[in-house]
C-alpha cells in the first residue's frame, strides 16, 4: 500500500512547511535562479525563452506574472472556498481605478471631486489623481477592492453555484457601465487614461527638474549604481517579488485555520457549520481576500499596459481566470501558477510558432512544405487552417481565434480526463518517480 510508507519527518513544523522536502526547496530555488538568469539575458539560458516566445519574451512574461497575482486570488475564492465567481475582472478594475486615483497625474488635482462631471462643473478632459507613490497606491488597490468585495458580500454569501456566477457577472457589467459614466476617473470611454508608471519614489513626484526617484522602473538606468537593466527587466524582478510574496501569503492562508475553514465550506458547507465555522463570515472573508489579490493584480495590469479603457474589465477577462483554474487545477497554488503560465503564455507561443512557420514557408524542403500547408494567405486555392492575414470571418482562422479554439478544447479535455488539471498531471508524474523503480 502506497500510503503505508512512513513519513520520516522530525517535527510537525517541517511537515507543515511550504516546501516540505529538500528536493522541492532545491527545485524551486534552481527555477528562480534560471528565471533570473534568463531575464538578465545570460547567453545560453536566455536562448530558451527567446526560441519559444521571441526576443521580446519578457513583456508577455511580465504580463503573465501579473496574472499570477490575480489568479491566486480567484483560486482562493473559487478553488479554495468553492464559490464560483465570474466577477474577478470587476475587482481588478476596482483596484486599477483606486491605483490611478491615488497614483495617477490629475489635472483636477486635489480639488477633483467625484460626480462633478455629472453636475457639469468639470471639463470632460479633467482627470482625478493625487500622484502618490507606489507604496500607497499598490496596497490601496488591494484594500479598495477588498472593501468593495465586502460591500457586495451580503448578496454574494446568500447565493450559491450558478446564482452566484450570475450575480458576479452582473458586477462586471455594472462596473463597465460606471467606468464609462465617470470619465474623470476612468478616462475616455474607449482608450481610458494613463496609469502611473512603475517606479519607487520616496514621496510625491517633483514637478520641477530635480526629479530623483529612489528606484526607477520607467527609464533605462542602473539599479544600486551598477546593475544596468532595461525597464522590462526591472519590472520582471519587481513582479517576480510580488508574485513570490503573494504566493507565500496564499500558501500560509491555506495551511492555517482560516484556509481549512474555507476548504471545509467548499467540501461540505453544512458539516463545516456544525464544526463551528460560521459559513457566511468565512465566505465574506474569502471574497475580501480574493478581491484584494484581484485589486493588486488589476492595478499592476493597468500600470503595465499604461492605458486601459473601461471595457477592458470584461467578462472575457474573468473567464480567462476560470480557464486558468480549470487547466491548472483549482484549489492548489501550484496548479494556479501552472495554469496561469500556460494560459497566458500560450497565445504568444502560438503566435511565435506562426511567425516561424511563415519564415519557414519561404524555404524549401519538408519544413517549408508543412509550413505552406498550415498557413494560408486567404487566397482561393490555399487551404491551410491558419490565416496569416487579417480577413473576414470564417475559415481559415487567424491566430487569435485559434487560441480560443485551443482553450476550449483544453478545458473540455481537462474537465473530462484530469479534473485536477496540470497539477494532477504533475502529481501523477511525481508519484510515478517516487515509486521508481518499484511501482507499488
Amino acid at each position: 500500500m502506497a500510503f503505508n510508507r512512513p513519513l520520516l519527518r522530525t517535527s510537525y513544523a517541517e511537515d507543515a512547511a511550504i516546501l516540505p522536502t529538500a528536493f522541492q526547496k532545491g527545485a524551486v530555488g534552481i527555477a528562480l535562479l534560471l528565471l533570473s538568469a534568463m531575464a538578465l539575458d545570460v547567453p545560453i539560458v536566455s536562448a530558451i525563452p527567446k526560441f519559444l516566445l521571441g526576443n521580446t519574451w519578457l513583456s508577455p512574461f511580465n504580463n503573465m506574472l501579473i496574472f499570477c497575482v490575480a489568479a491566486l486570488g480567484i483560486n482562493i475564492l473559487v478553488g479554495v472556498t468553492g464559490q464560483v465567481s465570474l466577477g474577478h475582472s470587476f475587482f481588478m478594475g476596482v483596484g486599477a481605478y483606486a491605483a490611478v486615483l491615488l497614483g495617477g497625474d490629475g489635472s483636477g488635482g486635489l480639488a477633483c471631486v467625484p460626480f462633478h462631471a455629472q453636475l457639469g462643473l468639470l471639463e470632460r478632459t479633467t482627470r482625478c489623481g493625487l500622484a502618490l507613490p507606489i507604496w500607497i497606491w499598490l496596497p490601496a488597490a488591494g484594500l479598495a477592492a477588498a472593501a468593495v468585495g465586502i460591500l457586495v458580500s451580503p448578496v454574494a454569501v446568500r447565493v450559491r453555484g450558478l446564482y452566484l456566477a450570475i450575480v458576479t457577472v452582473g458586477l462586471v457589467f455594472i462596473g463597465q457601465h460606471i467606468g464609462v459614466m465617470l470619465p474623470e476617473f476612468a478616462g475616455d470611454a474607449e482608450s481610458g487614461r494613463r496609469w502611473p508608471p512603475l517606479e519607487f519614489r520616496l514621496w510625491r513626484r517633483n514637478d520641477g527638474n530635480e526629479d530623483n526617484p529612489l528606484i526607477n522602473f520607467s527609464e533605462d538606468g542602473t539599479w544600486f549604481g551598477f546593475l544596468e537593466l532595461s525597464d522590462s527587466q526591472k519590472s520582471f524582478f519587481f513582479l517576480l517579488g510580488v508574485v513570490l510574496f503573494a504566493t507565500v501569503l496564499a500558501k500560509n492562508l491555506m495551511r492555517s485555520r482560516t484556509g481549512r475553514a474555507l476548504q471545509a465550506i467548499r467540501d461540505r458547507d453544512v458539516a463545516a457549520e456544525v464544526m463551528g465555522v460560521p459559513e457566511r463570515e468565512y465566505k465574506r472573508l474569502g471574497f475580501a481576500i480574493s478581491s484584494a489579490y484581484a485589486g493588486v493584480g488589476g492595478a499592476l495590469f493597468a500600470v503595465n499596459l499604461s492605458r486601459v479603457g473601461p471595457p477592458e474589465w470584461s467578462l472575457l477577462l474573468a473567464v480567462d481566470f476560470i480557464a486558468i483554474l480549470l487547466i491548472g487545477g483549482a484549489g492548489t497554488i501550484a496548479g494556479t501558477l501552472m495554469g496561469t503560465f500556460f494560459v497566458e503564455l500560450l497565445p504568444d507561443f502560438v503566435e511565435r510558432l506562426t511567425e516561424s512557420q511563415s519564415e519557414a514557408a519561404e524555404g524549401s524542403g519538408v519544413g517549408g512544405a508543412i509550413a505552406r500547408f498550415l498557413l494560408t494567405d486567404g487566397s482561393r486555392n490555399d487551404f491551410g487552417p491558419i490565416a496569416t492575414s487579417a480577413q473576414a470571418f470564417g475559415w481559415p482562422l487567424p491566430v487569435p481565434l485559434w487560441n480560443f479554439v485551443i482553450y476550449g478544447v483544453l478545458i473540455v479535455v481537462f474537465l473530462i480526463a484530469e479534473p485536477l488539471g496540470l497539477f494532477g498531471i504533475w502529481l501523477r508524474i511525481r508519484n510515478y518517480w517516487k515509486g521508481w523503480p518499484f511501482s507499488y
Partner: protein
Amino acid sequence: MSIQNQPLLEVEDITLRFGGVTAIDGVGFHVNPEELFAIIGPNGAGKTSIFNSISQVYRPQEGDIRWRGDSIMGQRPDAVARLGIARTFQNIALFGNMTVIDNILTGRHIQMKESWFAGMKWFGAAKKEEMENRARVEDIVDFLEIQPYRKMPVSLLPYGIQKRVELGRALAMDPDLLLLDEPVAGMNLEETEDMARFILDIRSELGISMILVEHDMGLVMDIADRILVVDFGKPIGTGLPDEVQSNPDVIAAYLGEDFSQDAGAAAGFSS
C-alpha cells in the same frame, strides 16, 4: 436546581414539520452529564431530524431545546458547536478533498483562535497554535488507530475508516456532548466491535456525554444507559435498556404488529 444534577441537554416537546410531513411530533428527553443516551426507531422515525434540530440545522416549529438550562433555539449551527456539541453524520459528511489530518484539524477550529491575518503571516502565533493543535490531532489519530491514512484525502478511504475519521473530527472539538448518528451502520462485525470500543473508551476516559442513534440493537442494549424509542416522529418509550426491551409498545413499533418471540431474539431483544 444545582449545577451538578442539572441535565446537560433538555429537549422539550419539539415538533418539526416539512410541509405536510411531520418528522418530529412532540419528542422530549434529557441527557445527563457523562450519560450515554440512545435513540432507536425504525427508518424514517425522525432520529436524524432530532440531531439536526439539536444542532439547529433544522428549526423545530414548536418546543424548546436547552443547553445547561439556556435555550438554544434560533441560534446558528456554528454557535451551537461552540457551546460544546459535536456530531457525526449518518451519511458521512467529511471534507472530501482534505487529508485525514486536515479534516481532524478542522474539528479544532473552535479551539483555535488565530485570525486570517495571523495565518497569512504564519510565523509567530499562528504557527505555534498550529503545532500545538497538530499534536492534539496526532493523539486522536493514535487513539482511533488511523495512522497509516493521515496524509490521504479522505474521499479515497474505505467506508469504515471514513466513519472513524468523522468520529475523530468530532472528538477534536473537545465537546461536552457528542451526537453519533448510526456510527456502525454498514460495518462488518470486526469494524463494529472496534467502533464500540472507541465509544466506550470515549465515555470512560474522556467523560463525554453521548447521544447514540443506532440500528444495531445488540450494541445499543449493551452500551446505552438509557434509551428513547421513536416511531413516526412520536416518542413511544424512554427508560433503561431492560425496561425498553420489555415495553410492548416498543416491541410492536420496532418489529411490526405480528412480532414473535423468535424474531425478537434475532433482533437483539433478549428478554
